[in-house]
């Protein structure tokens, strides 16, 4: 990170620590999560999906039922509250699929904060609906045309904005990436997912899951889901990355499966890069997974052998997108479809170790038009 941001990062670390110890902050956040976001989200026993996968007890943690349609709002509401405490009235964010941008714009509308969202030009095109949603919520969407024109470059541009306007501005990072304290702070704000799910499955099944599955781009829904289960040694944690056109093709976003350690956006983690240390372009059908880095704590869990990371291709994710829609009446986000695809192909193998818990991180409404286009149905919007 540039020297200019050091003071802001230090101040943020202190403010965050104070907020976690402040019962008033906690109760305000809790109230908003309950009454505005709609938590707790249900844990749903997906029997038809389980039949198809060859496992009788597959459970979906329904983060798609949150207000704004994904887990992202757990973090943005909390960070916006924190920004308000810090006296910062201007909020910036990066977004890939647009879900984090929408969740940030929503929190800013709620707290009457100025909101600017950086979004790669390619994603602006892929996720036109979310661009309009952000604008409806009063945010300004700034398309980013540099580099690969996706999430990585939107993040670069957000950091440049922050360096320039650091005194007035808080940067709401959308994933467990970036410099400290962001990875642990975003993890903590998302860890409500796993805490609820752990309680819920104990209630329904009377036991812990054998396997917990979540998709991984930057890795915030996975980190939020895994965190409560990390001490439960018998619970296998599986992160599913985007293999894009296939890991062998080089067109993918599987940093943990195929990357090497490197530094991007202020943290040391697995990174897609070439032999000269230049960051390689990521590829995924899902804009939210289209990121060449990954949260540093995922790298830690991988190296420590506590979590396993695997990857599924665009085609497998698309097939799972359709399958879940037909089998359960739930249209999943393309990001979450990666986790579903993994359960469909590997679920039977998890039968002996107990229930499978899957984080359904978002709903697929935002992807419907794009999938229709990819599948040759033309423009339906």
């Amino acid at each position, binding site marked *: *990170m540039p*020297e200019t941001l050091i003071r802001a990062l230090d101040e943020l670390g202190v403010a965050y620590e104070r907020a976690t110890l402040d019962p008033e902050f906690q109760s305000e956040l809790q109230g908003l999560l309950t009454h505005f976001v709609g938590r707790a989200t249900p844990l749903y026993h997906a029997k038809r999906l389980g039949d198809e996968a060859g496992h009788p007890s597959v459970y979906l943690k329904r983060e798609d039922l949150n207000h704004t349609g994904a887990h992202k709002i757990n973090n943005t509401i909390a960070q916006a509250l924190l920004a308000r405490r810090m006296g910062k009235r201007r909020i910036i964010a990066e977004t890939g699929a647009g879900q984090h941008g929408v969740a940030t714009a929503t929190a800013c509308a709620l707290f009457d904060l100025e909101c600017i969202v950086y979004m790669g030009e390619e994603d602006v095109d892929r996720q036109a609906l979310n661009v309009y949603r952000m604008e409806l919520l009063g945010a300004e969407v700034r398309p980013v045309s540099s580099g690969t024109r996706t999430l990585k470059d939107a993040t670069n541009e957000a950091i440049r904005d922050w*360096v320039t306007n650091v005194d007035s501005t808080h940067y709401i990072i959308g994933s467990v990436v970036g410099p400290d304290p962001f990875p642990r702070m975003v993890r903590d704000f998302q860890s409500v997912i796993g805490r609820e799910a752990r309680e819920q499955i104990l209630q329904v099944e009377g036991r812990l899951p054998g396997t917990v599955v979540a998709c991984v781009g930057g890795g915030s829904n996975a980190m939020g889901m895994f965190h409560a289960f990390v001490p439960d040694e018998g619970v296998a944690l599986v992160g599913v990355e985007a293999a894009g056109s296939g890991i062998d093709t080089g067109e993918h976003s599987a940093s943990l499966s195929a990357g090497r350690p490197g530094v991007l956006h202020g943290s040391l983690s697995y990174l897609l890069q070439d032999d000269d240390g230049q960051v390689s372009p990521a590829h995924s059908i899902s804009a939210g997974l289209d990121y060449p880095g990954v949260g540093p704590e995922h790298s830690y869990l991988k190296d420590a052998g506590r979590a396993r990371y695997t990857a599924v291709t665009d085609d497998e994710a698309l097939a799972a997108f359709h399958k879940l829609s037909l089998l359960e009446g739930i249209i999943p986000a393309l990001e979450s479809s990666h986790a579903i695809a993994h359960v469909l192909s590997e679920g039977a193998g998890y039968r002996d170790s107990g229930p499978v818990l899957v984080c359904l991180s978002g709903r697929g409404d935002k992807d419907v038009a794009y999938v229709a286009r990819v599948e040759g149905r033309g423009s339906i919007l």
Partner: protein
Amino acid sequence: MISEAFRARRAEGQAALVPYVTAGYPGRDATVPVLEALAAAGADVIELGIPFSDPLADGPTIQKSSFDSLSNGTTVASVLRDVAVFRAAHATPVVLFTYLNPLLRYGLSAFIEDAVQAGANGLLVTDLPTGADLALESQVVGSPLDLIRLIAPTTEQARLTQVAQGGSGFIYYISRTGVTGAQSELRSSLAEEVRAVKTAVSLPVAVGFGVSTPAQAGTVARLADGVVVGSALVRILGDAGISAAADFLASLRAGMDQAPE
């Protein structure tokens, strides 16, 4: 070597002129001719950028030069080869200016060894602020390369001394919050800020970020020990070529040496 260059200017009552250029820009073979032209036009120390795919501390001009340079096929190794060629015939100190990841991939100790071998004199890593990675920092500090430290307007007083301690060569004061890029006006508080930094550190202080005219260079020269010019120079280099860039640099030198009106 680097602080000597500053000292030599100061002995004459002048400030040092420190141009920044991106290696491999505007063309793959441009690096050595550009370095030679800058040295001839009055550069006291040259900052040579090793391009990175994600230059998040840089504004549009240096971003573009970095992307173009990478498309031209520039690599860490090719930049070091260019430095060696330049060094064979010129004494002007060279600071390698880059981001951390290309150095990590190359291997920091191998990089330091090869950079010293090539004749580089200093290293500035934009995204490795003081205290971020003590092991890496001490590798540079323990090497013949000067570790050029950055101080920003947001750097707190208590941190100034810490930043200065591990640094050598000179201190680079970032004249405003923001990314690199030419500015039409310098901040009015600049004089006061530079004075505060100079009080806290014993190394020469160069001021950069936003210097783009002879008049601005003159103003900064009267406040600080050195003037860094980057984006304005890189833009001229890209738009009008090497000799125009050298003329521009010479005009800054003239602006710096002119008595205040």
